[in-house]
C-alpha cells in the first residue's frame, strides 16, 4: 500500500467515524462559537476598535478550537490502542501522519466555514468583496500550518500524562509565525485600502512548506515508542 493510499484509507475511516459521531466538529465549533459570543458580549467596541481586534479574535478562535480538535482526533486513536496498530501496519508512520493531518485540516476548515461568517456577524464587521479571497487564502494556509504542527505534537503527546495542558504549551509557540501572519493578512482583508502587509504571505507559505517536509519526517522518526 503506497503512503498516499494508506493515508486516504485512514482519512476515510476518520471521516466515517466523524460523520457518525460528529464529536470533533461539534466540540471545535461549539467552543469557537463560545469564544466569539463571549467576546462580542464582553467588549462593547466601536467600528474602528472592532476592525482593529477582529483579526486577532478570528485567529485566537481558530487556534484555540483547532487545539481541541487535534486533541479529540488523537484521543480517538488512543482509546483502545488503535494508534499502535496503525503504526505497525505496512502503510507505515508517514501514511498515518498524512491521514491524521488531512483529517485535522478538513475538520478545522469545516468549522471555519461555519464560525467565520458567524464571527463577522457577531462582531458586526463587514468583509469587502476584494478581501474575501485574501481571507480565504490566509485561513487555508494558516489552518494547514496549524494542522501539520498540531498533528505532529498531538501524536507525540498522545500517551503523555497532562497532554491536554502540554499540547497548547508546545504547539502555540511553534505556530506564532502563522498567528502573526494570519492576523496581519486578515486585517488587510478587512481593510484592503490599508497598506499591504508585505512578506507575510510568503512567511505563511514558507512555514507550511517547511512543516510539509519536516513534520512527517519527525513523526516517522519519533513515533516508534
Amino acid at each position, binding site marked *: 500500500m503506497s503512503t498516499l493510499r494508506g493515508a486516504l484509507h485512514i482519512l476515510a*475511516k476518520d471521516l466515517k467515524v466523524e460523520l457518525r459521531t460528529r464529536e470533533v466538529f461539534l466540540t471545535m465549533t461549539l467552543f469557537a462559537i463560545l469564544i466569539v459570543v463571549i467576546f462580542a458580549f464582553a467588549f462593547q467596541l466601536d467600528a474602528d476598535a472592532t476592525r482593529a481586534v477582529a483579526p486577532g479574535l478570528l485567529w485566537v478562535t481558530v487556534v484555540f478550537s483547532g487545539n481541541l480538535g487535534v486533541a479529540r482526533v488523537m484521543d*480517538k486513536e488512543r482509546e483502545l490502542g*488503535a494508534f*499502535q496498530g496503525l503504526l*505497525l501496519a*505496512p*502503510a507505515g508512520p508517514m501514511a498515518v501522519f498524512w491521514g491524521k493531518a488531512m483529517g485535522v485540516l478538513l475538520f478545522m476548515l469545516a468549522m471555519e466555514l461555519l464560525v467565520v461568517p458567524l464571527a463577522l456577524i457577531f462582531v458586526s464587521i463587514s468583509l469587502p468583496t476584494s478581501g474575501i479571497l485574501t481571507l480565504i487564502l490566509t485561513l487555508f494556509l494558516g489552518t494547514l500550518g496549524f494542522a501539520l504542527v498540531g498533528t505532529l505534537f498531538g501524536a507525540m503527546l498522545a500517551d503523555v500524562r497532562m497532554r491536554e495542558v502540554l499540547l497548547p504549551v508546545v504547539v502555540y509557540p511553534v505556530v506564532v509565525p502563522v498567528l502573526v501572519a494570519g492576523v496581519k493578512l486578515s486585517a488587510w482583508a478587512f481593510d484592503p485600502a490599508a497598506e499591504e502587509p508585505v512578506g507575510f504571505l510568503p512567511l505563511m507559505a514558507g512555514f507550511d512548506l517547511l512543516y510539509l517536509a519536516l513534520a512527517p519526517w519527525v513523526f516517522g522518526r519519533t513515533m516508534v515508542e
Partner: protein
Amino acid sequence: MGEAVLAARDLSRSFGRSWAVRRVSVEMHAGTLTALTGDNGAGKSTLLGLLAGLLRPSEGQVAVFGEAFTGFFPADIRERVGFLGHLPFVYPDLSGRENLAFFRGLYRVDPAKAATDDALLAEVGLTDASHRLARTYSRGMTQRLALARMLLQDAPIWLLDEPSTGLDAAGQALLSRVLAEAKARGRCVVAVTHDLAPLGQIDREVRLRGGRLA
C-alpha cells in the same frame, strides 16, 4: 528445526536507569507456540514490544527471518508481523464488520487468500454482533474482535500480549483452537501470559525474572 523465524539477540532495553529487559537471547521457530511468562514487571511486555519493533532496543538486535534490526521494522517486515497488544487495537465507533473492513485495507490483505469478514466474524462468535458498534461490546467480545483482526492478517509471526484477557471459558477455548490452527499453518506464535492454560498446547515456556531469562 530450521532457521529461527524470530530471534532476540542479546536484547536489552532500559527506561532511564532501570533495565526492563537485559541481555535476552531467544529464538522462535515456525509452527511453534512460545509462552513468555514471569511475574509482574519481569519485562514480558517490553520484550514483546521489542520483538514487534515497537520499542527500540538499548542494546542488541531483533532478527526477523534472519534479517537483523535495531529499531522500527521496514514495511515488508511489518507486513509479516501480527501484533495484539495489551489493548485490542480496534475502533469503538466502528462496528465489528467495519473494523475488519478497515484493517483488511490497512494490512493489504489479499482477498483471494483471506477468509471473508463473515467467516472471520463467525469463527470468533461475533456474527450476531457484527453490525453493532465495538463500543457496545463487552471486554471479551472486543478481544474476540481483536482475534478476528489477527486471523484476518494471518501474518507468519503472531505476537500476543495477554490474549486471554476478558475471555470467558468459551472464548478461551476459541483462543486455544485459533492458536493451535495458527501453529498448524506454520505460524510462529509468541504470547505473553500469566496463565498458560488458555493458550492450549505450548511448545516452549520462556520465563523472565527481573528482565533476564530465568
